[in-house]
């Protein structure tokens, strides 16, 4: 799209959207928020960029390989924190032994698991947009 207002708005809004996503991510213990919502908000910044500047430009700042790597890394982080609890002799995904005492252990565990969830959700959303962005819609089927 060759709209100057939209381009400037996107450039100005890109960083604050990601900052707000991180706020929702790490403030999720006290207010509304958490990993899923934060992932979607961060992905919204990339999707807006891809819509205004084109998917090719967006693949420069978020290449498909990095996208897949971060997608898998988030899910791996989630599973890894669970397995650490299993190795230390507790049930799967129990956070009690991760820190020096019970409370800090739960804090670290929830933070890591939520971060993994956020990373995965964000990259799944970007991956879905990359997959479906060039899908033709409706009226100009012939060309």
């Amino acid at each position: 799209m060759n709209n100057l207002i939209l381009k400037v708005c996107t450039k100005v809004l890109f960083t604050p959207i990601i900052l707000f996503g991180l706020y929702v991510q790490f403030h999720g213990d006290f207010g509304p928020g958490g990993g899923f919502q934060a992932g979607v908000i961060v992905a919204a910044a990339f999707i807006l960029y891809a819509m205004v500047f084109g998917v090719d430009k967006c693949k420069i700042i978020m290449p498909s390989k990095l996208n897949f790597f971060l997608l898998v890394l988030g899910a791996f982080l989630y599973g890894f924190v669970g397995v650490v609890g299993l190795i230390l002799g507790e049930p799967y995904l129990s956070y009690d032994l991760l820190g020096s005492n019970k409370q800090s252990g739960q804090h670290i565990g929830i933070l890591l698991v939520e971060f993994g969830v956020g990373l995965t959700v964000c990259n799944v959303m970007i991956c879905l947009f990359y997959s479906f962005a060039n899908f033709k819609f409706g009226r100009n089927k012939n060309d």
Partner: protein
Amino acid sequence: MMFLAILFAFSVCFLLILIRLIAGKTTYDRILAANSIGTIVVLAISIHGFYMGRPEFIDISIVYALINFIGTVAVLKLFDKGKLGDK
């Protein structure tokens, strides 16, 4: 009491925009009406949060405004170009 009055004014505005949405002549009128409904909802969420004594609702209204903006851009681009990917 003041917050209730503001919420009532918002509902009146909402009804007026709904009439525009249903009776809209072109597609762009309808898109604009849907966007305005989004704006009204953002304001109403904030005011309702303060009325109920939970100012954390401002977070939700910011997210709503963001999604509203991106959704409008997406719909307009889809009607303009036919697909979302290219420049």
